[in-house]
């Protein structure tokens, strides 16, 4: 029984619903469909389209059921039992169709259009309108992604309300009034919101359409599969539409526990990578000039090298739970190495261990619902909009419900209108956290955040991004803040399945379920299932593996679903490592930048062609199903690992997905985390080590491999490389906004245009990680921050005079 139940009668049937429920929702519970356009369960009531008229006894006029809340004893008559309501609905549909062009045969929405469907179900059939219809120029491109056809619009205001209430990017508004009223964007502006695609999906007519999908297919061409988005760790539920084997559209699938009904534009529009030109569908062997080969010939060859040589594994974040588990077992029980890592750089501290355990231990982790209902949220080292966009929407939703949001970040984030920001020099987050932990008095940011978290009664949330974990103790400190204030603690990884990798133990010192290799008891739990783990010493992490490769200490390097040349924060070392390693095995879906270095390519199937699970940042493991058959003889990664184990004369113990799941379940089952001492002992005063600190993180739309082919998305949201600097620092160096500057670090230098903005912390320089024009890892030496000098580029030496930044190494000036 709901809280505050209210009983009413709709069409002579009684229904009991919680107080505050709208009539239209109560009717839904009885299975009574009232036609509607403006009503959307995730948007506030508007009553804009007037389609959902019902008769409420005792009220003189018809009521719009999407705006009226139920009352005790209310008697409602819908179109089913009230002639007045039915006539009003028929008349309203005729009215809405007055100016509608009825170009359904060519409209992208035709066939799945609420206006079409409801006109058929509830409409008059014929219009009495014989005059010329209103015409507008069309389609108007609102951005390279979204086209607007104002003739089809019924002015339901769903899109403008989405921009206002959900994304906060208020680009769309209703302009003018009466017969001239229209949805529009300010002249000369672009609909530059990373959530713009949602307005297309919720448009109940064909007024907003997706340019990449324009005229590509009709709904009846498509076969659809349910999947989970692979672009970040948000775990958004999506529907993938395929036309004759080609992915042509991605839509959000509603899941109130994860993404509500939204996805970001990257998830929606970056779907062409699996069909991009570099896709590989058979194994390729370098010695034969990258000729196609079969698994049957390549695996024994590879097994021979793995048996005799020293082997290391690097993975990306886009594999599935099953793949990571199989790899962890392969490395430890067949190959006999602990040199495997899924991380791009060092991430230290207790937090990671806790996070690994939290894959199964839901008591300690944060979920979207916890965020939504938290009265206080503290974010540290996380730009949620750019890194995990749907989490950003949840934080905004919480803020709209009254949550206080505190952000500690070196760069202003898009939460700026709902949150309190403390711009902090990169690396100095620890001092802020330390003060919050101590609970300093006064009116400072730290004092307010501490007081708010303490006052949240245990439902405050502390969210930490992976950059913070670069400091060996920062994540521990954030955990200390959380435990001292009784808040929940969430460690937000960025890539799709980092949490799955951590949980499965693709890590030099962690085994499945967060069990530590170095702790005999925990190790024995794993060995009880796996048999003996061959190497007992902790392995090398990603940076050490690459160093070892460069020093010729590794014979066979597997790079699995990763591109360290772009992703690893030390481009120079990566190049040396790839050049010096004896055998480079690239297991991937595409050729990519590793092509010149690879000895062998193994064709992995992309997510759209695989069956398995992915784990989002919360630790929620979600099943995804293949939406089409694998191309060529590309296989799921875990099958390739099992094949390699067999070729090495061993056996991973599973041949089907079911057997694999059975085995995984025993090791990833929920288990209590042993308490561990917190080693944080105070930060001391902040030290200003260097004049300027370069920091970098990937923006949402960048040159990442999974965005290959998404040209419209890049045109809409991708910026060429730039550097951001605080006006104080710019003035000191005499640099103006817009000039080209040269950034010089110990690892290299690069020339980019400068943006002078107060949105970065003084003393820091922001460079996006992977935009066109600069792969920022050429400026880094294993961490996401570096000491940097910035100088104006002389007139004489323009950008063309600077050689390939990745190769030009030199000491900092």
């Amino acid at each position, binding site marked *: 029984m709901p809280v505050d139940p209210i009983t009413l009668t709709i069409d002579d049937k009684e229904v009991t619903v919680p107080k505050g429920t709208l009539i239209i929702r109560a009717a839904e519970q009885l299975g009574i469909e009232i036609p509607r356009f403006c009503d959307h369960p995730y948007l506030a009531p508007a009553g804009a389209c007037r389609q959902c008229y019902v008769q409420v006894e005792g009220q003189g006029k018809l009521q719009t059921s999407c705006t009226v809340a139920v009352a005790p004893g209310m008697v409602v008559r819908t179109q089913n039992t009230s002639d007045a309501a039915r006539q009003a609905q028929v008349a309203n549909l005729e009215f809405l169709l007055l100016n509608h062009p009825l170009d359904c045969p060519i409209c992208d929405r035709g066939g799945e259009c609420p206006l079409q469907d409801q006109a058929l179900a509830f409409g008059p059939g014929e219009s009495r309108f014989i005059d010329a219809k209103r015409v507008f120029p069309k389609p108007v491109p609102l951005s390279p992604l979204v086209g607007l056809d104002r003739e089809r619009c019924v002015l339901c205001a769903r899109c403008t309300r989405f921009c206002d209430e959900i994304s906060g990017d208020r680009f769309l*508004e209703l*302009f003018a009034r009466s017969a001239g009223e229209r949805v*529009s964007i*300010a*002249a*000369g502006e672009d609909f530059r919101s990373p959530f713009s695609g949602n307005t297309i999906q919720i448009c109940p007519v064909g007024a907003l359409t997706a340019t990449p999908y324009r005229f590509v297919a009709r709904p009846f061409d498509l076969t659809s599969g349910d999947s989970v988005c692979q672009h970040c760790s948000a775990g958004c539920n999506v529907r993938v539409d395929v036309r004759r084997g080609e992915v042509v559209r991605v839509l959000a699938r509603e899941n109130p526990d994860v993404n509500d009904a939204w996805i970001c534009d990257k998830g929606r529009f970056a779907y062409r990578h699996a069909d991009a030109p570099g896709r590989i569908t058979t194994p390729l062997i370098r010695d034969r000039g990258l000729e196609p080969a079969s698994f049957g010939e390549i695996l024994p060859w590879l097994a021979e090298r793995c048996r005799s040589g020293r082997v290391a594994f690097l993975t990306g974040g886009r594999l599935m739970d099953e793949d990571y588990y199989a790899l962890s077992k392969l490395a430890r029980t067949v190959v006999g190495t602990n040199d495997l890592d899924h991380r791009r750089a060092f991430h230290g501290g207790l937090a990671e261990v806790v996070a690994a355990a939290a894959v199964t231990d839901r008591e300690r982790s944060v979920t979207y619902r916890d965020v939504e209902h938290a009265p206080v949220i503290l974010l540290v080292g996380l730009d949620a909009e750019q890194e995990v966009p749907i989490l950003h929407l949840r934080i905004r939703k919480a803020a709209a419900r009254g949550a206080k949001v505190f952000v500690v970040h070196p760069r202003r984030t898009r939460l700026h209108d709902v949150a309190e920001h403390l711009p902090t020099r990169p690396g100095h987050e620890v001092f802020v956290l330390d003060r919050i932990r101590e609970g300093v008095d006064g009116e400072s940011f730290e004092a307010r955040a501490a007081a708010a978290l303490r006052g949240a009664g245990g439902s405050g949330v502390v969210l930490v991004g992976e950059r913070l974990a670069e400091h060996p103790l920062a994540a521990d400190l954030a955990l200390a803040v959380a435990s001292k204030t009784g808040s929940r603690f969430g460690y937000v990884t960025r890539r799709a399945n980092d949490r799955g990798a951590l949980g499965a133990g693709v890590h030099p010192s962690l085994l499945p379920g967060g069990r530590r290799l170095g702790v005999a008891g925990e190790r024995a739990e794993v060995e009880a299932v796996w048999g003996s783990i061959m190497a007992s010493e902790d392995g090398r992490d990603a940076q050490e593996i690459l160093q070892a490769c460069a020093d010729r200490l590794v014979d066979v390097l597997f790079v699995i679903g990763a591109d360290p040349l772009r992703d690893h924060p030390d481009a120079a070392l990566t190049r040396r490592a790839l050049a010096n390693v004896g055998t480079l095995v690239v297991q991937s879906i595409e050729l990519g930048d590793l092509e010149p270095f690879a000895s062998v390519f193994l064709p992995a199937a992309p997510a759209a062609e695989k069956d398995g699970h992915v784990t989002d940042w919360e630790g929620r493991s979600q099943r995804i199903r293949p939406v089409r058959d694998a191309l060529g003889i590309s296989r799921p990664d875990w099958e390739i690992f099992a094949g390699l184990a067999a070729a090495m004369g061993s056996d991973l113990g599973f041949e089907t997905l079911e057997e694999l799941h059975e085995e995984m379940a025993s090791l990833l089952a929920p288990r209590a985390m042993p308490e561990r001492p917190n080693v944080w002992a105070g930060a001391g005063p902040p030290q200003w080590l260097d004049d300027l600190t370069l920091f970098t993180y990937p923006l949402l739309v960048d040159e990442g491999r999974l965005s290959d082919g998404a040209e419209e998305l890049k045109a809409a949201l991708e910026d060429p490389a730039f550097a951001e600097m605080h006006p104080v620092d710019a003035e000191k160096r005499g640099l103006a906004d817009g000039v080209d500057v040269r950034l010089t670090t110990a690892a290299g230098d690069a020339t980019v245009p400068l943006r002078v903005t107060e949105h970065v912390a003084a003393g820091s320089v922001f460079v996006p990680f992977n935009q066109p024009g600069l792969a920022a890892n050429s400026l880094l030496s294993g961490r996401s921050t570096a000491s940097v000098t910035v100088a104006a580029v002389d007139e004489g030496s323009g950008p063309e005079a600077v050689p390939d930044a990745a190769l030009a190494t030199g000491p900092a000036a």
Partner: protein
Amino acid sequence: MVFEGPLRADADSILARYPEDHRRSAVMPLLYLAQSVEGSVTREALREIGALLQITTAEVEAVASFYTMYRLRPTGTHVISVCTNLACKLRGAEAVFEAAHEATGVAHGAELSDDGLFTVHEEECLGVCDFAPAVQINFCSHDTVSPERMRELVAGLRAGEVPSPARGPAFDSFKAASRALAGLEEVPSA
């Protein structure tokens, strides 16, 4: 820049009328202020008002395009608004509208005269149906205007006179009226 120098000071004085967390309430007076410069609200002004109020340009333009007293297209020195709503239409507003076109030289289907002196446009109800046909010139009301009276009014404006309105203060131009509506001038009550 529209809002710079003294105009920026005017804008600040308007902003100061509203509490810090209700800045966006200043959008309408700021639109009038912008209109008092060029006679219409330019795109640049829309953008700047958005920046001043920390709202998007689209939100400003939504307000500006909703209300007919904000002009978003090039506008003459004097704006003649002729009500053609029901009451006025029944009392011959169309002839008045026609006379306004003739007298000012505004082409049919256009709004602005070639000499840039006049803008003539149709208005929905001006709220003085009891004195139909109603006309506003630079926001000043003129009651029961006949076509002859309209020609006289236009001739007067051409001669530099300020016709005395039926009620309220008189303004010698659309810009001056806009500035008064921004609340920046002391307006004598009639």
